[in-house]
């Protein structure tokens, strides 16, 4: 139980984040800052005419939880509707990350979700 938060796959996504780049010509860009620690995530996505994500990427620095969450989120997002992605809850991101999160750390994990919620469509 001791380090259940930092399971191997979380550390793996932290050390080798997937889809960590600024997507050129992204139709959707959103940013969120965690007021508590100042960590910032910018999400980029291409979506088709039905609002289904075809590609998603992210940039920004942060803790293991926010980085792993962003990495897993960009993988999970492919083929999902933006609308349903931006409505993901504390429980949803716990399922996505496969770990349980305190209220404080859930804010880190929800950073990519919030960033998508703050999107500006271009």
């Amino acid at each position, binding site marked *: 139980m*001791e*380090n259940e*938060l*930092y399971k191997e796959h979380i*550390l793996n996504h932290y050390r080798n984040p997937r889809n960590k780049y600024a997507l050129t010509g992204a139709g959707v860009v959103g940013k969120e800052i965690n007021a*508590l*620690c*100042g*960590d910032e995530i910018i999400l980029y996505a291409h979506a088709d005419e039905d609002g289904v994500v075809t590609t998603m990427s992210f940039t920004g*620095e*942060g*803790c*293991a*939880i926010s980085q792993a969450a962003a990495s897993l989120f960009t993988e999970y997002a492919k083929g999902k509707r933006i609308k349903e992605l931006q409505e993901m809850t504390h429980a949803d991101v716990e399922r996505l990350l496969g770990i349980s999160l305190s209220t404080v*750390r859930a804010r*880190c994990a929800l950073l990519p979700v919030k960033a998508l919620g703050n999107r500006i469509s271009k």
Partner: protein
Amino acid sequence: MKKDIKNDFPIFKAQSDERPFVFLDSAAVSQMPQTVIDAVSEFYSTYKANVHSGIYGIGMRAVEAYEGARNAVAEFLSADSNEIIFTSGTTASLNMAARMLESRITAGDEIMVSTMEHHSNFIPWQELAKRTNAIFIMLPLEKDGTLSLNTVRAMAGPRTKIIAITHVSHATGAVNDVREICRMAHGVGALCVVDAAQSAPHMPIDVRDIDCDFLAFSGQKVLGPTGTGVLYGKEKHLCELTPVIFGGGMIRHVSAEDSTWADAPQKFEAGTPHAAGAIGLGAALSYIEGIGRKEIMAHERNLARMARRALMNMPGIHLYGPGNEKETSGIVSFTVEGAHPHDVAEILSRENIAVRAGHHCALPLMNHFGISGTIRASFYLYNTEEDVERLVAGVQKAGDMFQV
């Protein structure tokens, strides 16, 4: 420092499992000895009454205890009792000072703060400058995050009206020579406001010697209850300045035409004060004086020095703040390469060690260092050498996990 001091603080028993609780976040909030909890509890259980109006037994007792606490604060700072305003904390004190001084500022005046300030001694002055069209100036720091007196000397001038400066940096432990900065401020005709949130709990403070115009500190950092604080103001200022919060308990006369104010400090304490908190604060100061601030300071500096030396020799650890140990208090700020400060704090928390991680409400300072945040261990009278050893072992574990 006496050996069994943790026994005076019930939190350590409450939060210890097979691993004793290591609390290293006293710079944010300190723990309370049983005597303080008892003083607060006694007020609530036996003589809770408003300190403004009670012409009955417990009402008078409440007034005596509340004013007794004010006397204790005055003695603690070498001030007079009528120079002590009770507030809800340093933030409230500094905001109040900024509002009180608004009448002294006109367009084009300069208001100065340092780059190491906590946001609470930064934003109120920035906002005051905005309201008055004054010029807000941030004093730059040296590479190690310290403020050179030469910088203050070079930048303070005839247009400078206020210099607001922290006594001790909450983020690095750097100590400012506030006595000299006050002298410089007065030399150019400016007032000097000192944020003593990180010094009052740890070192002797004599406001007559420092010669500051205002000084603020928080109750919760000096072993007192949360929601308590103090604003000291020189008597002549408190007499001249007008209140910024209005209501009951602060008036001399009220009529349809106009209202007039009670004498200081009452005119600055509108509404029912946090009497229980003030009484607890008084008890906390008396506990501290029973040990002595010189002894407390020496003890903390020793622990901080131990921690710095151990961390310095570990790979991937970066320490922030002045290298000269004589100029720092019991605060150690560091980062672990490859690990976010919050992750390090989380791993330490799993070892039953409480530290603070993040930007510490000092974004201009973090910006100066070019980092997003640090891990901060702050020591107080109840910490021990074992606490330092546990911290160092915990940081080692975090480093291993993130493969420094």
